[in-house]
């Protein structure tokens, strides 16, 4: 092993025009051959900008400065140089963050991979064709011959991610930069992709792995650099950093991971809590679940609900198959399952936005599913909803104040609630009142989700259906929102149907859990029981794939010379 690093970065800064502070601020690090360096940090900390700058692809409105940027001892060329063409793809491969849209949707993926070969190798056309198939096979794409002819829109997210990785690998670059390669993926797919990356480091390829997910880091990285606000606040061996974090930002990141954090324990440290209540410093053992009054009728009850969707030619999709669920008042029912399993359909049926083909739905013990839209209206305010994509659930023309005001007017119960003004609502979700005049588009993801929660609370509902409320958020923001929801539940006695594909989040939030697969509930029960002793094989496979932050990364992977 030579001492010369493969890539060396000295004091890199990137400043955007008109931005108050640099996006990347004096970052320095080295990557050696065969090494995996993880860059972690919360959203907006400058990870992606760093990655793109290393390939000379900083956005046009960015000013880049550095003391040294060298690849194998050679300085990297200046921004507009033609020499980049021989470096990009050939010496450094990049897997972009937005995997789902990083392949040209109008071209077959095979052609996209072929482009790299065409640009950087002297292979003949036939050889390249052959190589494309080999690459697709190598990244674990089944039936490569077919897939190579398909366009990215015809591939699932996991396949797209793998095809994108194949483009980065194609010319066999010594260094690959992978920006959030697993974020958009299901746990099971995520596990597959991670093991693929691991196997590549074994062949001597060096990696820069960018992620905000420390669990992922703990599994693959040799070394880790933690970024915050454009600076590297801590770096070192993975095991050291994760086991004994020095910087506050690292500690915060670690704390934000909900996995294995017991129900009711806040995920954030050092934070001002919601004004409604003082944050309990101790986990309230067993939390709401035990204390939950099972007295009276359940908040929401689905019995043998089925729903089919017709398709044009093929047989109809059985989205739900005799689903029965019970959400007890004041508790949280976690609903977990992979993409397409029918989670959203359940929520929509429960909200009366969709009708079930058969089965019954009761709300607070009353008939609900069989009511007409008109009969439902007076009862609607008892049932609120929070959506995965808050932005699209806001009328873009309305201000936050207007949105909340309209929602308050939906309270037709006549009861006065403690949240009866816009200001009170904003306070309740811990948003500054100054945000009132903004439009949703001008809020950050976390702020938007808080406004969504505030809106859901406005009509004084007793039950909230939350469809993936945090999956669009980064870990730290997610932690804030989860803490808030927890808090509100305790204070207002709300019942939550909490939908997520993230087992960690589900475990942290739920009293009872239902696991859904292909429209069927495969297992229900108390959260602790399901996570500690899953009975259904499907549940077991899910839990096994759940990444956890363990000691040194190598503990999981094969030792390497």
């Amino acid at each position, binding site marked *: 092993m030579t001492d010369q690093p493969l890539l060396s970065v000295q004091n890199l800064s990137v400043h955007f025009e008109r931005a108050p502070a640099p996006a990347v601020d004096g970052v320095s690090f080295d990557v050696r051959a065969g090494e995996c360096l993880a860059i972690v940090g919360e959203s907006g900390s400058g990870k992606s900008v760093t990655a793109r700058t290393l390939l000379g692809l900083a956005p046009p409105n960015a000013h880049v400065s550095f003391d040294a940027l060298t690849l194998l001892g050679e300085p990297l060329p200046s921004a507009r140089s033609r020499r980049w063409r021989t470096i990009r793809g050939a010496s450094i491969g990049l897997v972009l963050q937005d995997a789902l849209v990083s392949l040209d949707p109008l071209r077959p993926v095979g052609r996209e991979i072929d482009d790299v070969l065409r640009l950087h190798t002297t292979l003949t056309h036939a050889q390249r064709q052959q190589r494309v198939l080999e690459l697709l096979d190598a990244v674990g794409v089944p039936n490569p011959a077919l897939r190579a002819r398909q366009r990215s829109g015809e591939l699932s997210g996991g396949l797209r991610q793998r095809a994108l990785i194949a483009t980065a690998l194609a010319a066999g670059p010594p260094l690959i930069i992978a920006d959030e390669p697993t974020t958009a993926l299901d746990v099971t797919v995520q596990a597959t992709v991670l093991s693929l990356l691991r196997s590549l480091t074994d062949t001597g390829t060096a990696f820069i792995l960018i992620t905000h997910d420390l669990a992922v880091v703990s599994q693959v990285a040799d070394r880790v650099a933690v970024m915050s606000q454009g600076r590297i606040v801590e770096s070192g061996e993975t095991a050291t950093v994760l086991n004994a974090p020095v910087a506050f930002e690292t500690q915060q990141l670690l704390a934000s991971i909900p996995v294995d954090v017991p129900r009711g324990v806040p995920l954030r440290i050092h934070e001002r809590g919601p004004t409604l209540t003082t944050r309990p410093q101790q986990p309230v053992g067993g939390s709401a679940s035990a204390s939950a009054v099972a007295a009276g009728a359940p908040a929401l009850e689905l019995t043998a609900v089925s729903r089919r969707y017709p398709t044009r030619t093929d047989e109809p999709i059985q989205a739900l198959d005799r689903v029965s669920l019970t959400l007890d008042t004041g508790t949280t029912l976690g609903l977990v399952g992979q993409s397409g399993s029918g989670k959203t359909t359940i929520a929509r049926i429960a909200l009366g936005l969709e009708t079930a083909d058969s089965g019954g739905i009761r709300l607070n013990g009353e008939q609900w599913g069989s009511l007409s839209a008109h009969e439902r209206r007076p009862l609607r305010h008892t049932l609120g909803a929070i959506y995965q994509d808050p932005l699209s*659930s806001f009328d873009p023309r309305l201000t936050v104040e207007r949105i909340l005001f309209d929602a308050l007017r939906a309270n037709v119960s006549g009861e006065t609630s403690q949240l009866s003004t816009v200001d009170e609502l904003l306070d309740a979700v811990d948003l500054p009142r100054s945000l009132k005049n903004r439009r949703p588009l*001008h809020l950050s993801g976390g702020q938007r989700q808080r406004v969504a929660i505030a809106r859901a609370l406005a009509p004084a509902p007793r039950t909230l259906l939350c469809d993936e409320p945090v999956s669009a958020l980064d870990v730290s923001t997610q932690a804030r929102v989860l803490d808030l929801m927890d808090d509100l539940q305790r204070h207002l006695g709300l019942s939550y149907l909490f939908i997520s594909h993230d087992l960690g989040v589900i475990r942290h939030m739920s009293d009872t859990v239902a696991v859904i697969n292909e429209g069927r509930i495969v297992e229900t029960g108390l959260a602790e029981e399901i996570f500690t002793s899953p009975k259904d094989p499907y549940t077991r496979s899910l839990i096994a794939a759940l990444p956890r932050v363990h000691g040194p990364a190598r503990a999981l992977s094969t030792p390497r010379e």
Partner: protein
Amino acid sequence: MAIVALLFILTAALAPQLLTTADPDAVAPVDAFQSPSPAHLFGTDESGRDVYTRVVFGAANSLLIGIAATVVGLGLALVLGLLGGLGGRVGDFVSTRVVEVMFALPGLLLALVFIAIAGPGVVTSTVAVGLSTAPGYARIIRSQLRSVRNSGYVEAATVLGHSRLRIVVQHILPGALAPIFVLGTLGVGQAIVWASSLGFLGLGVAPPAAEWGAMLSSGRTYIDVAWWLTVFPGLAIVATAASFTVLGRALNERTRQGAIG
């Protein structure tokens, strides 16, 4: 640029007296075909009328036709679009068919047949142009309505328990119809160009009213002896259509940003 041009055009349309003191219809055969000079900035036409004055006074007519045609087209489209976007299955079926039929007939054919039925004139050519632009607008309005109707925020309002009427009035209509103003602005320019084509085919406003299309088409006869007869009204049409397009795009940008901030 576009703003200056538009201001000028609007002044000409609303208060032509500010820009010229002459009478646009004052005939003086002895002064016919004078090339541009300080006395007649844009020269004189075949009847000795001052071309500059006629271009200025023509603004009102041309603009009126352009705007009125767009209003007619948008109005018709609105009815069809609303029927299609909110009228349920039957309404949608009917409106889609009507739009398809209108689309399938070339605009000028519609206009020609309509003018043949109703007789030529300002009103007819306005309506004719409006008719032929309507299906395009209707399609946009319909799809806009549909996408808003299926949008997350309409669903969210339903979940909150707002009434159907309230949702339509407060969310669907404003959301869907906001782009109409922009569409209209972009359409005015094209409508003016269109109406001028009808003028060329002899189906425009009644003489001697100054209207750019009619001026252009009568001036075309003398294109080899008096270039100014076609160049100035032609430039007026191009400038107006182009300025409205620029304005429409700017508005478009604004509303997009407006939704943002």
